[in-house]
């Protein structure tokens, strides 16, 4: 993420500044990112720009990626776990066009990974950056609709409301409730929404060697988890948080540890389970072939 910004790669559209945003905007966003990294899990407002994509397409994540992207970076974009959905393909094409950067579907090769719903199965390494597209950054939003009051609760570190919500989930559903966006305590201080990743991925945030950046375009907020930071899912002593996956093996690669998507195979109720992380599944399949 060296930001020698004016250097244009050969096949870059000359009608745009490198990575689309102007340099002043990128600097402003990078300053916000530095603040966010200095106060892990704390939401920092920023002057979000209009992007040539509708909200819900990850405009917050795209602005963060645009601000940290350098010509030497290799970008991977995933939606759910896949690199080939319309959303992922459009974002990858966009950055290829406006920054000319190398793109990849391989987790191991990527220096920046923009994501909507997943953290890759392959363990991340030092120097890699995850950029999350966040629809709703405020973890207390459903419990306390007044934003001024949620800011006060964060300032006071008063998260009993979130604990009450968890109590209600368990009382109603029997188990540690919400399977997506399960709230986490970052660095023992701030309650954070990990964006809509499945609870299965929450443990990957804890003490990760990679830098995690979160951008919410519509709500104009940025937050971060720096490398090697404690991230703990909210739970009860007698109902510890448990990452859940469908109890099956992947139909394509046989993995019994990866997060699975359920796929309907015909209109007679046929279905199968395959890895949601397509790159991970392909790696497993290759390894299996090599071993045969």
């Amino acid at each position, binding site marked *: 993420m060296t930001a020698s910004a004016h250097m244009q790669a050969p096949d870059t559209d000359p009608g745009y500044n490198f990575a689309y945003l102007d340099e002043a905007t990128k600097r402003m966003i990078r300053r916000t990112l530095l603040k966010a990294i200095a106060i892990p899990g704390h939401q920092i407002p920023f002057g979000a720009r209009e992007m040539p994509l509708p909200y819900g397409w990850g405009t917050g994540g795209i602005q963060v990626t645009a601000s940290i992207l350098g010509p030497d970076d290799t970008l991977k974009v995933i939606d759910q776990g896949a690199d080939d959905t319309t959303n992922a393909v459009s974002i990858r094409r966009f950055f290829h066009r406006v920054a000319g950067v190398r793109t990849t579907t391989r987790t191991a090769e990527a220096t920046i990974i923009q994501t909507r719903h997943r953290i890759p199965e392959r363990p991340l390494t030092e120097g890699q950056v995850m950029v999350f597209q966040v629809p709703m950054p405020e973890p207390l939003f459903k419990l306390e609709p007044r934003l001024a009051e949620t800011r*006060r609760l964060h300032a*006071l*570190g*008063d998260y*009993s*409301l979130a*604990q*009450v919500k968890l*109590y*209600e989930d*368990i*009382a*109603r559903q029997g188990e540690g409730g919400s399977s997506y966006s399960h709230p986490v305590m970052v660095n023992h201080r701030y309650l954070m929404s990990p964006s809509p990743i499945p609870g299965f991925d929450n443990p990957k945030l804890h003490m990760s060697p990679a830098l995690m950046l979160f951008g919410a375009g519509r709500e104009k907020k940025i937050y971060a988890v720096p490398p090697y930071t404690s991230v703990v899912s909210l*739970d*009860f*002593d*007698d*109902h510890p948080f448990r990452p859940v996956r469908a109890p099956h093996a992947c139909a394509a690669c046989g993995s019994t540890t990866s997060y699975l998507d359920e796929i309907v195979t015909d209109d007679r109720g046929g279905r199968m389970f395959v890895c949601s992380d397509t790159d991970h599944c392909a790696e497993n399949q290759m390894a299996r072939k090599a071993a045969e």
Partner: protein
Amino acid sequence: MSPILEGQDLALRFGAVRALDDVSLSLWPGEVVAIVGESGSGKSTLLRVLAGLMEPQAGRVLYHDAEGAAQDVHALREAERRTLMRRDWGFVHQNARDGLRMGVSAGGNIGERLMAAGGRHYGNIRAAAAEWMSRVEMDPARMDEAPRNFSGGMQQRLQIARCLVTRPRLVFMDEPTGGLDVSVQARLLDLIRSLVAELGLAVLFVTHDIAAARLLAHRIVVMRHGRIVEEGLADRVLDDPRHPYTQLLVASVLAA
């Protein structure tokens, strides 16, 4: 022994209205004090200022904690004041909507203060919620129901359970039986009286119901136009009112 709570020279105006006009009041540990007076006399304002919910323009409120240290309630940092309110105090509102989370089950409402105090054992929180539902004579089997499923009287019981679960030393109540049917009021007052005696609570409560004051209070404070015009032991104030305003208040009840 020192008072548990002292209001000193409190004043608060709303525009031209003197809602509190140089009011001083002490409450002693284990004492139940009723604040009476006609509507608009400043009772709720006094209660809210003493409970730290509203800041006075002059005067101060001192709370003497269990270790005997005096805390200037309005000079505390917000975090400290909130801790105090949830650990040592309770507040029962006239309208259950103001005191309960209507979107949260009865058990969750009672458990909230335990969780705020760091409780992280789901089973223990439920056990405490069930115990407190029983103590306020509600059916613990209904602990997963929402407050709106309960009658007005039951909602007040729930509010009381929600306050008492952390064993506060001091409870504020603003017309806790207001708006309820007479027979429901009587049973709720009986319940409050027995809990207060059992737990040795200090209680400051506002009422315009002289009968409620007689039933619960050791001492009565009479307010008019933002001032205390008379105070004394409950029987003395009710049977031998000295201030003409108190005489009118007592008489209107006798006439009712």
